[in-house]
């Protein structure tokens, strides 16, 4: 299990207990993601996309199987270990943006630096990222003064401010109109192409999925297909 992949899962399983019932969310997922890859994950609701995302992001431990992210075996990590992983190794972008409503855009980004113990001030190269995201002039505003597209771009800036190895985006365009969706997807593609950012993106939208190099199709807790975008 060492093929240079930044994410590797083998026979990954997750069982949730809801009331008296065990729900098998993942039923043996094998996945390799190479550094610099932009991978889209598609599938119907309940197919296990989000569970896979949560395990790779260290938000929940797997029930069985192996999962390595950036060389770390997540199955062996404690809760504190997974917390550490979330600080520096992965960055999240959510469908609902999930910005802290009382903080300005700048402070939303700074808080991620602060939690990671890197001080509040982003490094000099980050200005380039802010220009790339097109939010450099909107940093003094609170989320409620920003459009959905701007909020999502702030969320992307927050996710990558600590230079994570992997950016995990869960339906990043799910709450956006088509124009803003396109802008956000292009930002993700730019980050991938210019900075070599590894990106895993969950989406329902085939057009959005087409922005990735590869697309993984999930159904009933398994990967049923893997396709590459046309060159």
């Amino acid at each position, binding site marked *: 299990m060492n093929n240079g992949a930044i994410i590797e899962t083998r026979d990954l399983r997750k069982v949730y207990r809801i009331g008296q019932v065990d729900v098998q969310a993942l039923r043996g997922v094998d996945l390799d993601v190479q550094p610099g890859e932009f991978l889209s994950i598609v599938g119907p609701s309940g197919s296990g996309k989000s569970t896979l995302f*949560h395990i790779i*992001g260290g*938000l*929940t431990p797997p029930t069985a199987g192996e999962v390595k992210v950036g060389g770390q075996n997540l199955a062996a990590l404690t809760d*504190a270990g997974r*917390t*550490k*992983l*979330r*600080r*520096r190794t992965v960055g*999240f972008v*959510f469908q609902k943006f*999930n*910005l*802290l*409503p009382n903080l300005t855009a700048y402070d939303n980004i700074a*808080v*991620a630096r602060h*939690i*990671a113990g890197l001080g509040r001030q982003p490094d000099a190269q980050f200005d380039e990222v802010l220009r790339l995201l097109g939010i450099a002039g909107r940093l003094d505003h609170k989320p409620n003064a920003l459009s959905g597209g701007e909020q999502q771009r702030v969320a992307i800036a*927050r996710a990558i401010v600590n230079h994570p190895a992997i950016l995990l985006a869960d339906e990043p365009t799910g709450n956006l109109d088509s124009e803003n969706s396109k802008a956000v997807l292009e930002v993700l593609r730019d980050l991938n192409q210019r900075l070599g950012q590894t990106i895993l993106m969950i989406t329902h939208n085939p057009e959005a999925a087409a922005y990735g190099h590869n697309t993984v199709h999930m159904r009933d807790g398994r990967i049923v297909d893997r396709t590459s975008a046309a060159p």
Partner: protein
Amino acid sequence: MRSLLSILLIAVPVTLILTLVGLTQGMLADAQSRQRGAGADIIIRGSQAKALINASGITIPAGMVDLVQRQPHVKLAMGVINDRVEVIMLLTGIDMAKFNQMTGGFTYDQGGPLQGPDDILVDRLYADEHHLQVGQKVSVNSHEWRVAGVIEPGKMARLAVPMATLQDLDAASGKVGQIYVQVDDPADINLVKTQLSALMGGYTINTIDEITAMYNVDQIPAIKPFTVVVAAIGVVIGVTVVWLSMYMVVLQRTREIGILKALGASKPFILGIILIEATLLGVGGTILGIVFSYGAQWLIRALVPASFQMAIVYDWWPRVAVVTLTAAILGALYPGLSAARQDPIEALAYE
């Protein structure tokens, strides 16, 4: 709004504690300064004397006053009677001539000295509290008096009447409650005290310094435990208010806590945020409680200046701060820990 309400609720017990202690200290200091204002060096009380002047009883034969007066180094001996009017307010029977001699006389805001048997002198604070003017009738201890003068406070009596009238009313003709003694030279105070003790076995004889030293919290039964009870109630209120407030915070901010956890915030980090907010509520409550204690003092001065005196007790500020902050931190612990333990996925899904 929630924070302001919490601060307000935390401030209530702070104000209660500061007012209670302030009243105790203020009233003791007032009584102390009025005793000193009498100008006596030694006070003789009956054998049943308790710590404070107001519980002495009228048991000393008036002839003892003349006996004391004849002792060497005694400049002046004056018999007085103190009847209780309120908890700590006294109606004092005096011999006007001797009182003037010993104290230099009252300063009159209105009217003049006692003349008739039913005359009363009231101090400015009592006059304000009861809206009294010279010439008005006032009932004190079931007797109707005529206000002869309004005096400046500070010289032994808040309410002064002719001693003979009080002796009649108390069925204590020929007796006094205390003898105030002035010596010819302050250096002789202890000498005179020793002489008097030898002469008057069975009486309680104290120098004015000893008497004023008795005006402290330890001499008033139950005041300390009462203060502890109020402080304990303060802790309970503080803990409850902060617990409810921070529980609300954790509920309201579940999603934000989930966001912070997704960003890699550790359990101590989340707990720290909750504790910092609770500490700020505690600090705010303490400051507001202190401000309110000035308000309580203003109200007491405006409404019942003669009955109650409230001091601002600066040395109690750090104590109430410790009580309040302890309560705030205790109250925030459970909500803080439950926030820290929240599952990030569930928290992020919270609507």
